[in-house]
């Protein structure tokens, strides 16, 4: 198992009480693996503890990306939310900590990207 960040990069942002997380493959092969294995239900389950609604996934093949829209994930959003991350700034980083079981050939050999995950664990 490796952290998703080894094979992907991401960006998250808010719209009201919703957020989006765009996840990009670091290689075409990584993108194709994510397209196969990183479905909307997987992401919805991962963020369940935040009270997220039905997650929608948009495929963006020209950018080798998947864009997830997460409704009601910000505890009210905007100025209403009491959370430290009221604007979903951390959600992209959080998704990149997801532990995934990918084929060995997707994991880059170079040490530029650390291949050992932080001691995070999904609930």
């Amino acid at each position, binding site marked *: 198992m490796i952290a998703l960040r080894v094979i992907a*990069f991401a960006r998250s942002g808010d719209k009201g009480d*919703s957020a989006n997380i765009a996840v990009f493959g670091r290689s075409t092969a990584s993108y194709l693996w994510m397209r196969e294995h990183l479905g909307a239900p997987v992401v919805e389950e991962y963020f369940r503890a935040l009270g997220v609604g039905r997650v929608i996934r948009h495929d963006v093949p*020209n*950018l080798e990306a998947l864009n997830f829209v997460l409704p009601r994930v910000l505890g009210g959003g905007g*100025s209403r939310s009491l*959370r*430290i991350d009221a604007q979903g700034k951390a959600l992209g980083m959080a998704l990149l900590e997801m532990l995934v079981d990918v084929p060995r050939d997707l994991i880059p050999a170079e040490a530029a990207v650390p291949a050992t995950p932080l*001691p995070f664990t999904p609930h």
Partner: protein
Amino acid sequence: MAAVLRIANGSAFWGDQPEAAARLVAAHPDLDYVTLDYLAELSLSIMAIQREKDPTAGYARDFIDVIRSLAPFYLRGGKTRIVTNGGGLDPVACGRAVADELRRLKLEHVRIAVVTGDDVIANLRQDPAAFSNLETGAPLSDVADQLVTANAYLGARAIADALRDGAEIVITGRVADPSLTVGPCMAHFDWDITAYDRIAGATVAGHLIECGTQVCGGFSTDWLDVPHVDNIGFPIAEISDDGSCVITKPEGTGGVVSLQTVKEQLLYEIGDPENYLSPDATVSFLTIGLEQAGPNRVRVAGATGRPPPPSYKVSATYRDGFKAHGQLTVFGHEAVKKARHAGEALLRKLAVRGCEFRETLIECLGTGASVRGVASRMSDTHLVETVLRVSVAAATKEPVERFTREVASLVTSGPQGVTGYAAGRPKVLPVFGYWPCLIAGKHVQPVWSMA
């Protein structure tokens, strides 16, 4: 007509680096435009509250400082034009203040235009039933009495018309962020409002630069690898007549413009990438192609456009009570356990004294609190330090006020190792609810005039 229009962004939000615009024109005196974005979802409600105390405070006064910083450039004959939504709730007052400042600076020849027509709060008050919440479907009548602001996201057309008429500074209220870039393109290339593919391209360019340094390595996943983050350049879009562009940044600045930074920003705050809705066009991002065209130069081409939706999006806000956040650091053995216990004791004490909150939250920062329960440390018992953050919200101000006075009591009644109280008593903050809705195009009349 120059083949390429150079448009930079010099402000991503209200409070961004005030000297950015002056630095941009110093590095690139041939820039055609600098756009300055001041308005996030809730900025207008903050301006509304400011204006209650001071009738002249309904716009981004930071913009006047920017004008002052550009004076030497203009006095030397600089020609770069400015387009900004810094007019906020009161573009007319902002235009007047800019005109006053320009007179003082002996720059009275600079022509200022003001775009209005975005304020639709009267429409919402008159017919609340017509403005249900886009996210929840709830009827506006639930909150109509507490409305603070309601502004339609205007498009590029009025900006373009003002520029065609010779305006050198265009000040708007709420417009769609990319329209600050689309307006100059429409005027310069003389695009028809139905040239949807070209408009789509300019919309994408505007979207890419609207968050300032974020497309130049700021907020990037691999931020630690970004060079010279102490001086990340603000972005420049070099836009061609076909709507394609090259995203770059000034020579000698830090940061990086790469396929990765452009990809990340392309999908920032995006829903369906096939249907990006703007008042100028409905844009598909699925046809966009990217190419690294040189060091810190990424070419963006192929966006396709269709007619915009018949309605304008409205961002309305309403008063929704008060809140406060109190923070203390806890150091020592079992820090997290102690912090949580201290937070609970504080809330219990307030409850006993009759304070009623509609919502409370205890967070222990350092334990994965940003995404509590999603990715958490396997164990936090080994942590020797945490920041306790306690938050409360209530419909009325009194209990929240009381909370802000009680937080400090933990310094002497909490666990040994409570520290970090130097910031003092927390502030009571007004809460604004966000109410996105739609308004039919026929009810919105964007107009512009020379100030």
